[in-house]
């Protein structure tokens, strides 16, 4: 059977160069970087190099890179760590309504612990407004946390403007760049970022390899305490093979970024055009241009996402959806809600993300299958029948 992965942000295969680079650190150079003897030497050297590569991806200093095991951990460390360290300065934190749950749920918890949290709204494209940020900052504000780009609708935030506002008021800025790093340039110096979360698996590195970049001078409390690995900010024996994998993936991502993103965006745009031409009643979610090059998000009017996903799966096309039925929490995407999408469109959303196996040749098949699946499911949809009867009164948002 055909297998067309259009869900690469959920998971992507490791670049084979990354696997090759990691393997020796499982068995040959298995030593502990903290060991004072010769078995520690090569792992220690490799860890230094990996840290340099990760730093280079974000234009930062290697000493600022703290390896973690997930973007979620990086976000938790950044926000809880700073909140605990800065509590005496103030208890107000600003973020946005479209952040990942590893930001939002941390803020919810901090909210219960005496912090005041402002979640800035987004417009229908998913943008946070720098003006709204300016108005939200108070003397009590100790942190602004706004993502670099949204993993669902792909919208890229105007980080430079947002950071400028926070800097003007002297407030540290954290950005969850897990979805963005490796796909758009993130330069901590140019942008003025103080804290940045990164995840290797979003640029073909290993799952479980992630980092938090911390600008010199920013103080955090550790989340995981114990030994003094990672400058005392994250205890635990260093996971050398995965750090090496992340370093290699960061290097490849940096070196190939220009070419890869142009090609990917071109392919994504082709797919988008073909879908909108071939399948009636589609709606684009997220900004048409200011979006991640590998990201496409469309709502298939009148039908529900899990059913779409299952039918496409039967045809070998693998996608994800922001519908409640496909979420573990049984709620439709908070991001789609935040951009003001009507519930039935949120339920019918499809997230299509490209990756290394994506090909022009597959587009016609994908379009044909989605067309058929949409037709079939619409034929049994009460919303579609109602629309046919009542006409444009309930017309889709085109």
């Amino acid at each position, binding site marked *: 059977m055909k297998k067309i992965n259009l869900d690469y942000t959920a998971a992507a295969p490791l670049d084979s160069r990354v696997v090759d680079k990691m393997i020796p650190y499982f068995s040959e150079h298995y030593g502990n970087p903290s060991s004072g003897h010769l078995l520690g030497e090569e792992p220690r050297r490799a860890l230094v190099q990996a840290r340099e590569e990760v730093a280079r991806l974000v234009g930062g200093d290697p000493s600022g890179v703290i390896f973690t095991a997930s973007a979620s951990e990086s976000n938790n460390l950044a926000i809880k760590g700073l909140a605990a360290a800065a509590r005496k300065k103030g208890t107000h934190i600003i973020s946005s309504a479209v952040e990942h749950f590893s930001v939002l749920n941390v803020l919810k918890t901090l909210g219960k612990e005496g912090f005041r949290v402002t979640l800035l709204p987004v417009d229908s494209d998913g943008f946070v407004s720098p003006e709204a940020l300016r108005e939200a900052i108070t003397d009590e504000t100790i942190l602004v946390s706004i993502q670099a780009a949204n993993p669902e609708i792909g919208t890229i935030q105007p980080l430079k403007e947002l950071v400028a506002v926070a800097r003007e008021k002297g407030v540290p800025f954290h950005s969850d760049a897990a979805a963005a790093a490796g796909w758009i340039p993130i330069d901590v110096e140019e942008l003025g970022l103080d804290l940045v979360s990164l995840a290797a698996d979003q640029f073909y590195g290993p799952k479980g390899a992630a980092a938090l970049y911390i600008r010199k001078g920013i103080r955090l409390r550790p989340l995981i305490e114990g030994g003094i690995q990672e400058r005392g900010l994250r205890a635990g024996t260093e996971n050398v093979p995965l750090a090496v994998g992340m370093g290699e993936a960061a290097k490849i991502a940096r070196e190939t970024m220009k070419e890869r993103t142009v090609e990917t965006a071109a392919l994504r745009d082709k797919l988008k055009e073909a879908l909108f031409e071939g399948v009636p009643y589609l709606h684009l979610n997220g900004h048409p241009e200011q979006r991640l090059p590998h990201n496409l998000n469309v709502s298939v009017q009148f039908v529900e996402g899990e059913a779409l996903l299952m039918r496409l799966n039967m045809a070998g096309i693998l996608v994800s959806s922001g519908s409640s039925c496909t979420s573990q929490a049984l709620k439709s995407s908070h991001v789609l809600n935040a951009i003001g999408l009507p519930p039935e469109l949120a339920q019918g959303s499809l997230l299509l993300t490209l990756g290394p196996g994506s090909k022009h040749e597959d587009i016609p098949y994908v379009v044909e299958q989605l067309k058929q699946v949409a037709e079939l499911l619409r034929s*049994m949809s*009460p919303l579609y*029948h109602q629309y046919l009867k009542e006409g444009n009164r309930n017309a889709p948002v085109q």
Partner: protein
Amino acid sequence: MPQYSDKVMEHFTNPRNIGEISEADGTGEVGNPVCGDMMKFTITVKDNRIEDVKYLTFGCGAAIAVSSMVSEMAKGKTLEEALQITNKQVAEELGGLPGNKMHCSNLGADALHKAIEDYMAKEKAQS
């Protein structure tokens, strides 16, 4: 979809009795797009039995399979028998449903009952 039984997958893949009976004797609707599942059942009744049953469903795999299963279970039953069909029975007939699908998607029996009650109410109004 490993979390779905073979029976669910079979009904999802080949749903029976899709549609809307234009001159229905009874109509029942449950759900809304916010929760993610909507079902509209229409029935015709003859000699106190469900002669025909059709449905339209907006919803996940489970919702579609449930609708299809309910339509099969209801067809030919007396109204009293059809009113005895429970959501739980439907799930059992389908070889079980994942825990998180028991509440939202397993509303087919409710929609059927609403259609029957609609029919009964109309009958009563006419008599």
